[in-house]
């Protein structure tokens, strides 16, 4: 629209509001359903859960009933500092999800970028077929994929069978609670940690156990997450790559930069915004992992696939400890907010993008 067109409309608006009398009412009527539903099922619930996390509500009747007491930080204290079973469970679930995030986020991002670069080669014919193949796992539901994964990684499943072709005896995946770092150390004869690490603990879990790594069972979930999300993120990277003109790359080629240098120095910096999006989405998704655990293992073996999201659900719905469950979910919320902000800070600073 040109300025000339726009000007009279603005002037008209200032002069006679009356010509658009119905607009205010219409605006509210049009947005009302969204406001009511989001308010009722997103805003009110969060406030209500915040209250429950500070209360001793037992799950009977309404949490807003007069008999329900305010116990301040009681629930938070019990799961964070008291050192009992609740604290230990939280510690274990944080250990598990921490390793999950640490491995899934970088690996899925790297794989997605790798796939995108491969598929994006301009000369490549049949690129649609490859793109479809890599993206397809992303459309299926987490439940269906988990069911498939339980089969693939069963004791006599596909993965172990393929491993046996090259002479490797595969583990008993979803029944193996050993941490992979501990397994790696035991190869060198280290079977127990130094007293300094086994003696002291954080959230009821000793330092030695924090460093156990994801269990073999959790590793299967890690592989699954990478498998299902890399396709989605690949699409984001492909879109970004297509927006980058070939000029800079060609200039780099003239200057004698090799393929890796061109990628590292020319392509990657231009992908920074997309990289930020992918890392953020990856982080948010990983911290909340729930569906897979609910469908597949319910936290087994030996609580090593227990995640905070599942723990929160279990504390509330199975153990009727609603306050604790709500408190866990808010702790998780704060962690997600913290990491999103931290990452924004780091990526923005380094890039020098204003």
């Amino acid at each position, binding site marked *: *629209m040109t300025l000339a067109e726009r000007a009279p409309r603005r002037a008209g608006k200032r002069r006679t509001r009356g010509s*658009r009398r119905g*607009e*205010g009412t*219409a*605006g*509210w009527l*049009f*947005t009302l*359903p*969204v*406001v009511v*539903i*989001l308010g*009722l099922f*997103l805003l*009110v*619930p*969060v406030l*209500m*859960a915040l209250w*429950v996390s500070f209360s001793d509500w037992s799950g009977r009747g*309404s*949490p807003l009933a007069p008999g329900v007491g305010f116990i301040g930080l009681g629930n938070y204290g019990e799961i964070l500092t008291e050192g009992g079973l609740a604290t230990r469970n939280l510690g274990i679930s944080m250990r598990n999800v921490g390793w999950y995030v640490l491995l899934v986020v970088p690996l899925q991002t790297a794989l997605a970028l790798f796939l995108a670069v491969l*598929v994006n*080669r301009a000369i*490549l014919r049949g690129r649609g*077929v*490859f793109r*479809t*193949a890599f993206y*397809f*796992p992303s*459309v299926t*539901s987490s*439940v*269906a*994929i988990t*069911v*498939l994964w339980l*089969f*693939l990684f*069963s004791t*006599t499943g*596909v993965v172990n069978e393929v491993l046996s072709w090259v002479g490797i005896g595969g583990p008993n995946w979803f029944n193996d609670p050993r941490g992979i770092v501990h397994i790696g150390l035991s190869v060198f004869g280290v079977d127990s940690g130094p007293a300094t690490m086994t003696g002291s603990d954080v959230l009821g879990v000793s330092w030695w156990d924090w460093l156990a790594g994801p269990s073999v069972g959790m590793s299967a979930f890690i592989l699954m997450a990478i*498998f299902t999300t890399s396709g989605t993120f690949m699409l984001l990277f492909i879109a970004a790559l297509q*927006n980058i003109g070939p000029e800079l790359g060609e200039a780099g080629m003239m200057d004698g930069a090799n393929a890796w240098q061109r990628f590292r120095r020319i392509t990657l910096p231009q992908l920074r*915004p*997309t990289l930020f999006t992918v890392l953020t989405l990856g982080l948010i998704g990983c911290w*909340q992992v*729930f*569906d897979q655990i*609910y*469908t*597949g293992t319910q936290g087994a073996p030996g609580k090593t696939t227990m995640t905070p999201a599942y723990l929160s*659900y279990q504390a509330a719905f199975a153990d009727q400890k609603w306050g604790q*469950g*709500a408190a866990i979910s808010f702790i*998780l*919320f704060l962690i997600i907010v913290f990491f999103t902000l931290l990452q924004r800070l780091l990526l923005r600073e380094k890039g020098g993008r204003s």
Partner: protein
Amino acid sequence: MRRARWLAPAGLYALLAALAVIYVFPFLVQVSTSFKTDAEAAGNAVSLLPQTFTVAAYERLFLHSDFPLWFANSAIVTIAVTLGRVFFDSLAGYALARLRFRGRGLVFALIVGVMAVPTVVLLIPKFLVLNQLGIYNSYAGMILPLLVDAAGVFIMKNFFESIPTAVEEQARIDGAGTFRVFWSIVLPMARPALITIIILSFQGSWNELSHFIVATQSPELTTLTKGVASLASGQLSQGTQYPIKLAAAALMTIPVAVLFFIFQRRIMNRSEGAVKE
């Protein structure tokens, strides 16, 4: 130089093909295993051709389990949610993009704000509110909370802001009311964005699990995700029974797979708009 140029694509294709096999093979195994006997599924997991071809798993699912009921429930919820989102998201998106009204900034802030709330925080509170409202364990409780989504409103708002206002202005001058303008002029122009909403909400509600876990209890209201998850953890069956589980997982993938192949081109490109911001 020439040799390198010829070699590079061959290597590239080999690498891509190998990766594609890794990505596709699990789904082929899934389908073939669903036609195997229990013993064969456990004994010979890798082979893609069943030695004894049987449809016993499908027979069991369709004739002797609640699977058809789960499917129907998922279909009801998905259709209702998709229709609701198409209508309400575009209505709100249009108002936020075009109509000037007091409190518009506030409404927009609410929508952006709730987009930032991670779903896992909502598990317990959603149950509390549904319970309080008396719609726990009902279709209303399953559908209503999903009926609009902030991201959809956002997409529609962005779309409406990108199309020229001239046609609407003309219709207004001709005396059409705000809803008339929206319904018969603006909405038909919004087809590309609406298809995006349809894809996202169909896939989202068909694959939704956690909301149905906290919103329902009775077997009559079980959806596919919840039902198949219960199959996975071994209800309804003794032993491993992989063919039944994998058949159920394969069947529940079909609708989203069909949607995916119909709108493939659009899905593959939708991310473009999202990243350009």
